[in-house]
């Protein structure tokens, strides 16, 4: 094993320029991966805050008795997704409307009866929030006999849902693209290194070397190239983070963005794993 490690180290040093260029290329690819994760992470963060503001207005039928309203309220409160239910009576709704229309009270002139319905203002549990769950809750509530109508920001919810889904898809696409790009870069480098040592490898085979003996130095070399690429990725990502933090003082939009710095630590491991994958693909089956 020590001999194979020695062979790998010698090869890494002998082919230092191609190895260094490959590692730097991997580093830049990992920087793009960091930026992609940074973007998706922040969009997720923003959309995670939406449930705190989100409410469903459930308008009740006019002719419900107090008992029926209490029963309905406890029924809605019993739903898994519901955090709290606030009852707004007809009268309260009308007085709120009046206070909201303070300067334009003439709009209500001539209206003698209160036209508004009593309602429940339903807040959703943040940790359980999802568009699908909210829509299924609304479907259930709509079938309840005490419900007149339901109002919620459907358009906004759909937009957020679509945007979040699209950004996740873009994130996954870019991640896969970068992963394949890194594997391809390592694949190409190892292929070049393998062909440069083709005669030497032929001699190894004729002397009785197994496929494992031939593969091992290349796997070590590919892993080291990937790992170094990860270290370059950390340096480049940290530079990116530094620029973001500096800019954050001046630009409010960037100021509230968050960066998952702990992700940096994973980059060398990601590089190492991709290095090994690329090498395995490059070596393929060793034929005797």
């Amino acid at each position: 094993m020590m001999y194979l490690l020695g062979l790998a180290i010698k090869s890494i040093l002998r082919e230092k320029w191609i190895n260094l260029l490959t590692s730097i290329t991997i580093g830049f690819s990992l920087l793009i991966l960091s930026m992609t994760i940074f973007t998706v992470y922040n969009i997720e963060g923003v959309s995670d805050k939406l449930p705190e503001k989100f409410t469903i207005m459930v308008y009740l039928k006019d002719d419900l008795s107090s008992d029926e309203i209490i029963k309905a309220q406890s029924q809605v409160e019993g739903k898994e997704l519901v955090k709290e239910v606030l009852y707004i009576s007809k009268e309260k709704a009308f007085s709120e409307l009046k206070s909201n229309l303070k300067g334009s009270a003439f709009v209500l002139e001539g209206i003698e009866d209160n036209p508004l319905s009593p309602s429940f203002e339903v807040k959703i549990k943040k940790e359980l929030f999802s568009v699908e769950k909210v829509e299924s809750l609304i479907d259930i509530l709509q079938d309840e006999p005490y419900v007149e109508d339901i109002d919620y920001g459907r358009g906004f919810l759909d937009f957020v849902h679509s945007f979040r889904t699209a950004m996740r898809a873009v994130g996954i696409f870019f991640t896969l693209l970068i992963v394949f790009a890194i594997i391809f870069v390592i694949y190409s480098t190892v292929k070049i290194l393998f062909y440069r040592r083709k005669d030497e490898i032929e001699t190894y085979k004729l002397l009785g070397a197994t496929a494992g003996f031939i593969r091992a130095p290349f796997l070590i070399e590919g892993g080291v190239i990937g790992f170094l690429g990860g270290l370059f990725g950390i340096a480049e990502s940290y530079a990116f983070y530094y620029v973001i933090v500096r800019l954050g003082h001046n630009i409010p939009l960037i100021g509230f963005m968050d960066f998952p710095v702990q992700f940096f630590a994973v980059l060398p491991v990601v590089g190492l794993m991709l290095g090994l994958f690329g090498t395995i693909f490059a070596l393929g089956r060793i034929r005797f």
Partner: protein
Amino acid sequence: MITFSNISKIYENHAAVKDINLQINKGELVFVTGASGAGKTTLLKLVYVAEKPDTGSIVIAGYNTSTLKEKSIPFLRRNIGVVFQDFKLLSNKTVYDNIALALRIRGVQEGEIKNRVSNALKLVNLRHRSESYPLTLSGGEQQRVTIARAIVDEPTVLLADEPTGNLDSGNARSIMDIFREINAKGTTIMIATHNHDLFRNTGLRVVQLEEGRLIGETVG
């Protein structure tokens, strides 16, 4: 030790070897001779599975090369030492490392490697060149390094392809002496050569090939 049964190998409509039946016994030293292109090198390549026969089978040290699984080929090769016509020495490694490579591939410990390489170098009289690189050696010295590498793990079979091809008669004699010494220890040896001086008056078996066919056997 080595049994060839109806062996043929054809390259692009040309039979490199055809219908070879041959038995080489354990501990024997056999010469295979013939003009260039007679099939000597192909016959040796078939033994160490650098080539596979189109028909027939070769059984060597219990391995049938026709039915041998690819992953078992390295283990067969570890029983065979080969002195290649073109040496196949690694120019970026010293003489010591070239010879040690055969043992490192087999997972032998470094302490043991040191002893065995030293003994092999002593046998070929090249101890003083152990730290030299192959390209700084003469043809005869390179040939002796190749022999040392082939015998360092004491193989049961030794194959030598034109081992004196580019050497003067003095060097050729000294290499033949090395082969005799190895053979005396029980190693079965097949030497492919077109140099008749090498086997003349040796009293050893000589197999004659012509255009891929075995045309006869004589005693040198």
